[in-house]
């Protein structure tokens, strides 16, 4: 019964949604052993924009993203996606999540893992689209391999392809490139936004890389540890489409420095070298 599609409107006819969060709190556990994972987060994602979420490990980024995806309910406060509750939007197959760990089903091939997303979202089969997405993430020739036969980075790319397979208008990406090597990561950083910008999507991206955050998004939100709340909100006004040449522009570097300052890493403005775990 829970699996009935509520609404059969084709996803492509719906624009990217606006996401709003009011005074969202999340507490795990009870009493003495409770953890305040997210406190008093106010957030608005404008339709069609990309927002990056950065912050030290364990500051509640994944938790916030999971609440937007309807996988956790806030302890207090509310989240609305286009005016609807997250789990209602999820049930309509209108949002897509790329998880921190790729979570591919080990008995399915790369292609059938990607195709599974369409089945779960109640969409018709589309082998061509699956093939196209797989080659976009550089997995040509690996369609029929099982996850165990793929490297960690390849698995994560497969998960990204799966995330894009449903044409969802709201993408929630939790460190989608975490295990991908630097070179491929940069290429994907530049290519993938074209896919979702082309169709108009609202994107929430959790990342540990400040460079990636600036390169991909219209806005970077910095979260702090204890208390787990928003500590800075920085607009990125660099023209699109973004190119590799932007990486060295003074504006870009200034923004990277600004974010690193907000994170409290001032001495290494360069970028990924300053992996945030090192601080945390």
């Amino acid at each position, binding site marked *: *019964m*829970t*699996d009935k599609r509520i609404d059969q409107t084709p996803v492509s006819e719906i624009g990217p949604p606006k996401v709003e969060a009011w005074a969202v709190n999340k507490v795990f556990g009870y009493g003495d052993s409770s953890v305040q994972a997210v406190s008093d987060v106010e957030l608005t994602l404008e339709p069609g924009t990309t927002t990056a979420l950065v912050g030290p490990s364990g500051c509640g980024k994944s938790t916030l993203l999971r609440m937007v*995806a309807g996988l956790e309910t806030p302890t207090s406060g509310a989240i609305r996606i286009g005016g609807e509750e997250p789990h209602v939007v*999820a049930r309509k*197959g209108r949002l897509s*999540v790329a998880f921190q760990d790729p979570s591919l089903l080990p008995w399915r091939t790369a292609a059938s893992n990607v195709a599974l*997303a369409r089945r779960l979202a109640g969409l018709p089969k589309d082998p061509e689209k699956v093939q196209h997405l797989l080659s976009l993430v550089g997995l040509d020739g690996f369609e029929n391999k099982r996850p165990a036969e793929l490297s960690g980075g390849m698995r994560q790319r497969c998960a990204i392809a799966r995330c894009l397979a449903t044409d969802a208008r709201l993408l929630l990406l939790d460190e989608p490139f975490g295990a991908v090597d630097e070179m491929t990561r940069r290429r994907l950083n530049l290519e993938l936004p074209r896919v979702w910008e082309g169709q108009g999507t609202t994107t929430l991206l959790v990342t540990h890389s400040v460079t990636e955050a600036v390169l991909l998004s219209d806005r970077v939100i910095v979260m702090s540890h204890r208390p787990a709340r928003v500590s800075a909100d920085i607009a990125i006004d660099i023209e699109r489409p973004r190119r590799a040449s932007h990486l060295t522009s003074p504006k870009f570097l200034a923004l990277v420095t600004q974010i690193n300052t907000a994170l409290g890493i001032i001495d290494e403005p360069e970028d990924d070298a300053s992996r945030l775990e090192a601080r945390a």
Partner: protein
Amino acid sequence: MIRQQVLLTEQMRTYAGFAGLLIAWELLARFAFGQLYILSPPTAIVMRIIEDLPLYSRALSATVSEALLGFILGNLAAIVLAVLVVTLPPIERLAQAIALVVFCLPLVATGPILRVIYGPGWGPQITLAALSVYYTTFVPLVVGLRAVPPSWLDLIASYGRGRLTAMTVVRARASLPYLIASLKIAAPAAFLGAIVGEFTGADRGIGVLSIQAMRSLDVDGTWALATIASAVAIIGYAVVGWAGQLLSIGAPPSLLVSPASKAPKVLWKKLFMAVAAPTLSCVVILLLWKISMDGLDLSRFFAKRPGDVWAYLVAGSQAAAHRSELFAALRETMGTTVLGYFAGLGLGAVLAAIFCMLPAVEKIASPVAIALRSIPIVATAPLLVLALGRGQLGMLGIVAIMIFFPTLVSCLHGLRQTPGQVIDYFDSFRAPPLTQLFLARVPAMLPSLFAAARMAVPMAVLAATVAEWLATGTGIGNLMALTNSTSNYNMLWSCVTILTLVSVAGYALVAMLERRVLSHFAPEQVI
């Protein structure tokens, strides 16, 4: 190429191991035990099988059909129940309790009761076969259906899909390794159930023939029938394993781990779980008992209700006498059973540890042990009675052997689970083998040992009662046989009730100990 060669030599070694065993057996039977009428040489057994082939094959086809039907029905019931428990978590405790009680029913006494209920025919054998497979399928399957990484379930939930999709898309497939592993064990177990059914009064089948052979001191015949039973059991085990390989389904990470359910944190919930839940389960089980007897409209003469047993043992005027008769027999049984239980467990664990220290021995012995493990020991009870005698020693031997093989195989499995890094770590210190064994491997083996110990409780009771029923003429097994032949159904039902309670209590005791020990050594196994 090289890999193939290695495999080939390993196979050769296994075959060499079997061949050596056979030759030693032949020599021993011909020259050492020739006059004792207990051991038949392999050549004589083969001759006998060829001689009596028509008789044996008729009996075998009856037994195999019963076992097959029971296998299918029992496993289907287990699968349905497991899926139900995982989709509706609130019913879990109740379902687990009912499943455990049914698992702990003493098959020996259930057989005759089923016989009067069903009348003549295959009914009791099929039911016993089903009863002896379903618990060992149900428990691992629940574990397998649950042992799904939460992120896979998140994936399903992120598309707004519910439990049904999670079951069909993820859980069903993820639990297949567990299902195959339990079906492998179930194949010989079903055969055992059918044979126990035949022991207690069928008119045809391998079980009937082996009792006849044992009673007429036909040594070669008893051995021939035990050999046939073992071969069929091993073939059943192998066929299921082969089917699993064909579908390229790997081995599950762990077998028969305890069905973990989250321990509640809040005090009143804890109290509820400790007191109310078991009480509720008891009430439901008693109700089910009564309703099924009433519903089938069975005669009160042989189909006793809970009230009859209560009156017979507690409320009635003769209750004290009945109680003292029953408990005297029970005491007699329990002494030997407990001894055999610990002997089997200890021997299995120690031998597994020894094998683990001597890899060369393990390579040869391990396949032999796995093959022997799939032999339904109880089905060969007539043989053991011949070999070990009709006294307490024979019974002790049957109980110990019954438990020994599953424990050995389970412990070997557990020892192999020691994480490679841990071994590497110890190796990096050049830790002596014994240190390594006790600090790294034994803790890794404990979950498997306890799983085996838990499942062995009802097995020990089964083995002891079969031995008593068939041979020793002592204890509660004998009491049940007597009451059966004198149609004293009150006593028979009372015996079944008390034995079930004893088994459940033993099982619960081991499970409690298991939690205590594992929360110290392997906290990840206890949730």
